[in-house]
């Protein structure tokens, strides 16, 4: 008998009588604008957030925030004048060797939505250019629409069910971090040392900014 069959037989023989699944857990009732909550939590976990009217504002802010960035990679076509893009025209395909992204200073990627209760953004493989990019880049920027913020992880998985299937996806909540040395929090363990989320809102006026 193979190990597989042995294990399955032993599990079947020893598992207790059937216990039904509980009804789907409904999170707390949350209505109203989730933006302030999302921003507060994201800042508390070491991230930054900007409410912006469009990609022009994003480009302006990034120029100011990352003046020293040499290699900037994006999957937002609106930023193609500002950063290298992965498109058939530019022939920047990294499939053969994700290692070539190692010297990325800044990556700007769209994400599907944010989660107010924990400041995370959900991003799937097709938005990443390469799976390793959101991790290997020194600084990461994610772009979501302001209306795409859900309250809790329960609503997050309801949303994920509507997204086309993925080979890889991840929730990203703040910059890479560790507290392994005497519980001292250090941002930038192996992944990005900073994480910024731009919340797009076309209704927003740029008046008063700069």
């Amino acid at each position, binding site marked *: 008998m*193979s*190990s*597989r069959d042995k*294990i*399955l037989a*032993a*599990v079947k023989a*020893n*598992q*207790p*009588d*059937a*216990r*039904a*699944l*509980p009804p789907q*857990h409904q*999170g707390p009732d949350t209505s109203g604008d989730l933006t302030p909550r999302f921003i507060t*939590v994201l800042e508390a*976990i070491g991230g930054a957030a900007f409410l912006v009217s469009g990609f022009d504002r994003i480009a302006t802010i990034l120029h100011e925030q990352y003046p020293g960035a040499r290699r900037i990679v994006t999957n937002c076509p609106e930023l193609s004048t500002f950063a290298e893009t992965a498109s058939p025209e530019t022939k920047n395909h990294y499939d053969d060797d*994700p*290692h070539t992204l*190692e010297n990325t200073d800044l990556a700007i990627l769209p994400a599907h939505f944010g989660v107010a209760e*924990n400041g*995370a953004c959900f991003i799937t493989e097709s938005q990443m250019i390469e*799976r*390793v990019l959101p*991790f*290997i880049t020194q600084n990461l920027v994610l772009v979501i629409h302001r209306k795409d913020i859900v309250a*809790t*992880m*329960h609503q997050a*998985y309801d949303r*994920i*069910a509507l997204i086309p*299937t*993925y*080979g*890889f*996806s*991840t*929730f*990203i*909540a*703040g*910059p*890479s*971090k*560790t*507290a*392994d*040395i*005497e*519980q*001292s929090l250090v941002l*930038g*363990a*192996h*992944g*990005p040392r900073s994480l910024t989320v731009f919340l797009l809102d076309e209704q927003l006026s740029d008046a008063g900014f700069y």
Partner: protein
Amino acid sequence: MSSSNHKDHATLAAAFNKDEPRVDWHDQTLWWVRQKRDKAAAQVADWEALRDSASKIKDNVLSNLSEYLTKFEEEASRNGVIVHWAADAKEHNDIVLSILRNHKVDKMVKSKSMLTEECHLNEFLAAHNVEVVDTDLGERVVQLAEEPPSHIVLPCIHWKKEEIGELFHKHLGTPAGNADPQFLTYAARLHLREKFLTRRVALTGVNFAVAETGEFVVCTNEGNADMGAHLADVHIACMGIEKLIPKRDHLGVFLRLLTRSATGQPITTYSSHFRKPRPGQEMHIVLVDNGRSTHLGRKDFRNSLKCIRCAACFNTCPVYRRSGGHSYHTAVAGPIGSILSPNLDMKKYSDLPFASTLCGSCSNVCPVKIDIHEQLYKWRQVIVQEGNSPAAKTATMKAMTWVLSNPGVYHTAGKTGRWFMLNVPFTVNNRLNPWYHQRDLPAPPKQSFGEWYKKNKQ
């Protein structure tokens, strides 16, 4: 104490307790983590309902585990993942080695996996000339120090930053005397980035595996699992068979609980869902039993298989905080390790269920509501019945039973004890009596309540 040749919890804890300021520091650091957990839990209005849901989902998992395993295998295979089954630690290690050999690779990176600690994979691979680099910062620290992790979430919680500075000076060439956590973390980042970029095989653990979709989720704060897996040609994910959950939306429940319980964060930085290998990559999943199917058959103890490895029970445990993870001499220490380990080897781990005050704090913080302290108590009974309790404890208990079941003997013993303690205390309070090693007794009364009552009953 016990007849086996390793040192037991009490002996190892006594060694840890020699340095009292260090014990206080260890205790306070973990208590601080416990307080962070409390704050995070208090911010979730439906926390108790969430724990209840998690516990019930896991009840369902245990009762349908064979079906969920079959379903998971089917879905994962459909996704292009190669599924392996390992009956025990040896088979698990052999499978990993054979994958490495097939690719002619003798170096790999590994992110945190307590299962591979349980299986002693690193030692096994080292003996077969494979170099393993642990990439979680805390795990890298203990690996360089040639020690096992002392905590499942905070592997080097017992290390002081000055000691880590010295260790990195020796192994990574950082300047002597630099103990700045920011600086040391940056040094480790550079050191490990080179490993990520040059290793062709990456091994990760698994936090949750979804039967419905065949995907698995790996949670890290550092991003080390992702750095390893997405750069490697081959990704091997190793998991105990109890990590299954039925549906993807159940992740909502578990991801809300896991990190809040572990460190007080609302979620880990990364919660990565691996479903298919990336183009050109090979992805393996090793499903490991290693005693779990037997454990599933133990009615009183099977609930411990619900564990999601958050370590909240470690951080709250008054014994763990003051005895250190290594005193448990097992991969998973703390209260949960004390009820899981006897299943693996009842004789070797017969001391662990006694390493508790049975205060119940572990059960109160457990996000999946495992009755940890009740199982500790039940294990004690099983261990004594099977003749695995320490000889001295057995003799004392037998003597106590005789005294307590004979009123005449009881009264005489009480009187004698009081006389000795009042008149010749040094015969009781001396180094030969282990009870006095960390304790003082209050002054004994002149008479017992029984004697007082007899005199005063008119």
